C-alpha cells in the first residue's frame, strides 16, 4: 500500500520540479530567441519525420496487401463477414444500451470502443450480457448466444477500437503454489479463499468462480468486469495469470478429504451444521432417553 503510493507520487514531484526550473528562463529575451530557433528546428525535424513515416507506411501497406494477395483477401473476407454478422447481432441485442456506434448510452451502458474482444467474451459467454434489466450488478443467466455468435460479436467489437484479447493455448500453464499466493493476495479479499465469492456493498457481489472456463477467468482478470479491478499485464503478467487460473481450477476440481464440504463456506456453515444436525441429533437422543424414564 505505502510503497505504491510513494512510487506514484515520485514522478509527479519530479515533473513539477522540472516545470519550476524552466519557467523563470522563459521570461528573458534570450530565452525567447532560443525558443524561436528551437521551434524552427523542430518544424524541420517534423517534416522529415512525417516523410519517413509516410514512406514506411506505404512500404508496410504494400508488403501487407500486395504479395499473398489471394490468401490475405480470403482472411479479411471471412473476418469482415464475421464483423458484419457481429454487427447484425449487435444491432439486435446490444444497441439499446451501448449505442449505435458502440459509444454507450448515458445511464444505460458504457462505451464499447476499446474494450476488446476479451470483455465481450467474458460478458456474453457467462450470460451476463445481454442484460435483462438495470440492477446493482449484472446477474449470470443462461447464455443467449451460440459460440459462433459470440465470436462474431467479439470480432465486431474488436474491429471497432481494438482492445485486449484472450490468448489461446493452455491457460493453466503456470506455477500452482505461486498462483495460490497471488490468488490469496489479489483475489481472495472479494472472491474468498476458495473462490466461493462474497458480498460487496449495496447488493453488489464478487461472484463464485465455480464452473468458469480458463478463458473466462483470464478475460475477467484482463478486463475487470463490473466491480472487479483490471489486472493488466503489468500487474499480473500473463504467466502469473496462468498460475492463478491453474490454482483456481485445481482447488475447484479438488476433492474434499475431510468429508462433505458444506459449501466450503467456513465457520458460518459449520455452525449451522452443528446447531441443526449436531444439536438436533443430540436433543433427539436425550428426548428418547427421557421417554425411557
Amino acid at each position: 500500500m505505502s510503497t505504491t503510493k510513494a512510487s506514484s507520487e515520485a514522478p509527479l514531484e519530479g515533473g513539477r520540479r522540472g516545470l519550476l526550473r524552466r519557467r523563470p528562463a522563459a521570461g528573458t529575451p534570450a530565452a525567447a530567441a532560443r525558443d524561436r530557433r528551437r521551434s524552427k528546428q523542430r518544424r524541420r525535424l517534423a517534416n522529415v519525420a512525417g516523410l519517413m513515416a509516410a514512406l514506411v507506411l506505404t512500404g508496410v501497406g504494400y508488403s501487407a496487401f500486395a504479395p499473398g494477395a489471394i490468401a490475405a483477401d480470403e482472411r479479411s473476407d471471412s473476418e469482415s463477414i464475421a464483423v458484419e454478422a457481429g454487427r447484425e447481432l449487435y444491432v439486435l441485442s446490444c444497441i439499446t444500451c451501448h449505442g449505435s456506434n458502440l459509444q454507450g448510452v448515458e445511464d444505460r451502458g458504457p462505451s464499447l470502443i476499446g474494450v476488446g474482444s476479451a470483455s465481450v467474451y467474458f460478458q456474453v459467454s457467462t450470460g451476463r450480457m445481454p442484460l435483462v434489466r438495470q440492477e446493482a450488478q449484472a446477474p449470470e443467466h443462461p447464455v443467449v448466444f451460440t459460440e459462433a455468435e459470440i465470436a462474431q460479436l467479439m470480432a465486431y467489437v474488436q474491429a471497432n477500437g481494438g482492445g485486449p484479447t484472450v490468448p489461446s493455448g493452455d491457460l493453466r500453464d503456470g506455477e500452482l503454489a505461486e498462483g495460490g499466493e497471488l490468488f490469496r493476495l489479489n483475489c481472495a479479499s472479494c472472491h474468498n479463499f476458495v473462490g466461493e465469492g462474497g458480498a460487496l456493498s449495496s447488493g453488489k457481489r464478487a461472484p463464485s468462480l465455480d464452473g468458469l472456463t480458463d478463458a473466462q477467468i483470464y478475460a475477467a482478470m484482463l478486463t475487470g468486469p463490473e466491480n472487479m479491478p483490471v489486472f493488466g499485464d503489468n500487474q499480473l503478467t500473463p504467466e502469473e495469470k496462468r498460475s492463478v487460473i491453474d490454482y483456481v481450477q485445481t482447488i475447484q476440481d479438488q476433492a474434499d478429504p475431510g468429508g462433505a464440504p458444506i459449501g466450503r463456506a467456513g465457520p458460518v456453515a459449520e455452525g449451522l451444521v452443528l446447531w441443526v444436525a449436531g444439536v438436533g441429533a443430540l436433543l433427539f437422543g436425550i428426548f428418547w432417553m427421557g421417554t425411557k424414564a
Partner: protein
Amino acid sequence: MATTTAAPGAPTSKIGQAALEVDDRLIVAGPLRRTLNKVFPDHWSFLLGEIALYSFVILLLSGTYLTFFYDATMQEVVYEGTYAPLRGVEMSAAYESTLGLSFDVRGGLLIRQIHHWAALLFVASIVIHLLRIFFTGAFRRPRETNWLIGVVLLVLALLMGVTGYSLPDDLLSGTGLRIISAIILSLPVIGTWAHWAVFNGDYVGTEIIGRFYIVHVLILPAIILALIAAHLLILVKQKHTQFPGAGRTEHNVVGNRLFPGFAVKATALLFIVFGLCAALGGLVQINPIWLWGPYNPAQVSAGSQPDWYIGFLDGSTRLFPAWDINLPGDYTIPALFWPTVVGAGLMFTVLALYPMIERKLTGDTAAHHLLQRPRDVPVRTSVGAMALTFYVILWISGGNDLIADKFDISLNAMTWFGRIGCLVLPPFAYWMTYRLCIGLQRHDREVLEHGIETGVIRRLPSGEFIEVHQPLGPVDEHGHGQLAYGGASVPKKMNQVGGARRAIKGFFKPVEEPAEVQRQAELEARGLESEQSDRQSITSGRPSEGGRPSEGGRPQAPRD
C-alpha cells in the same frame, strides 16, 4: 481359605473377597454406597450439562493426540509436503505441522475434525444447559455459586476456542488473531502495553502461537477441569433440582439412582455424544486449513468469520457505527472498543450477576429446590427471550455477508436490519413472550377449573350445543374444579389422563403386539372397575406427571 473367620454376611465369591480386602484398606464402601445411591431426576433437560461434560472428555482425548504432531512455533519454513497447491510456499512451522497432521499422519485429519466439532459442541451444550438453568430458575438460592462457576466456564470455553482455532496459523485464524490484537490495542490507556505483553512486541511477532498453545493445552484446561470438578461437587452436595410433580417436594429428589439406572443412561449419552462427534468428524469437513492458506498479514479473504460462539462479537462489531472518540492530545478511543470489550464485558457481567439481580428485585431470598415452569415466571422468561433475541441478532449479523451473498440481499440492508433489529426486536420479544406466558397460565387455570375439552359435542333439549369437559378432580356445585395449580404440567388432552389406549411401546418401531396390549388393557379395565369402581371419581383426575399416558384404558390413579 478364610471361610472360618468370615463374619455373618461376609462375601464368599472371589470378587466379593477381593472387594472386602480393598475396603479393609481404603474404607470406601460407605462413600461409594452413598454415591451409587445418589438419585438423579429423569427429566431429559437434566442431560444437557452432561453433553458439555462428555464433549470436554472428547476434547481432552483428541487434543492429546493432536499435540503429538503439532509444532507450536512461528519459525518460517518452506512447505515440501504432500499437498501440491502449497508446495514451495513459505509458512510457519505451526501451519506446516498442521498440514502434516492433516495429510500425512494416520487418522490425523479425522481426529483434528473430531476435536473441532467437539469444541463447537462443547460451547453449544454449555449454552443450552445455561438456558435450561435460566428459564427454570435453577440458579436461585442456594445455587448461585454454581451459576457463577458455570458462567466462568462458558467464558473460559470461549477463550479455549479462540486460542485453539488460532493455533494452525492459517489465513482465517490469522485474520482472527489480527482482530484480537486490535481489540487489545483498543483498550484505553493500557492497550499498547497490554498488546506488548501478550504479543511480546508489535503484531504479529514470533511468540504468540507458542503462548496461545500453552494457554490452550495447559492453563485453560487445568482451570476448566478444576471448575468442572467444583461444579459437580457442589451439585452433589446441594442435590439436584427437580420439576414439581406428584410426590416431589422441596425436601426430596425423585428419579433414578446413580447405579444402575442413571449410570446406564449416562454411559449411553456418552456414547451418543462420542458417536455424533465421530460422525461429524468423519463425514463433514471442518476448517479445511489447506484451502485457507498460510497466514500472511498482507492477505485477507472475503467471508472470514470466527467459529459460531465468537460470532456475536463479530456481529456487534459489524453493527456498531464507526464512532472513534478523539480526545485532545492525539488520543483516540477506537470504535472497536465499545462493541467488543464493553459489549461483551457488560453481557457477561449481567449474566454472571443475574441471580443476585433477581434476588434483589424480587426480594426472594428463600432456598428453592423445585424448579419453575417458564410460564409461571413471565418477567424472567421474557427478559431471557429479550436477551436471547439480542444475542441471535448479533450472531446473525456476524455472518451477514454470507447471508447477503447466498440469499441475494444487499449487505447494507443486512447491516441496517441488524442495527435496527437489535434495538427494536428485543422489546418486541419481551412483549410477545410475556403475552405467551400469561396465555399459557390462563389456559392451565382454565383446564383446572373447567376440565379437559373432550371434543364430545352434546345437544341439549333446548337446541343448544355444548362441549363436554372432563374435570380433573372433584367439582363444586357449579361444576368447577377445586384443584389448585401446583407448578406442574397440567394435562390438556384426554389421552394424558388415560382417556385413550395406552401407547404401544417402542421408539422406532413397535416392540409390542397391539392386539395383546389391547387385550391386557381391557382386562385391567375390567379389574379396575370391579375392584375400585368407588374411588374412580376422586382420584382419576389428578394431574398425571410428565404428560405420559397412564397405564390402562381409563382414568386411574397416578403412579405415586
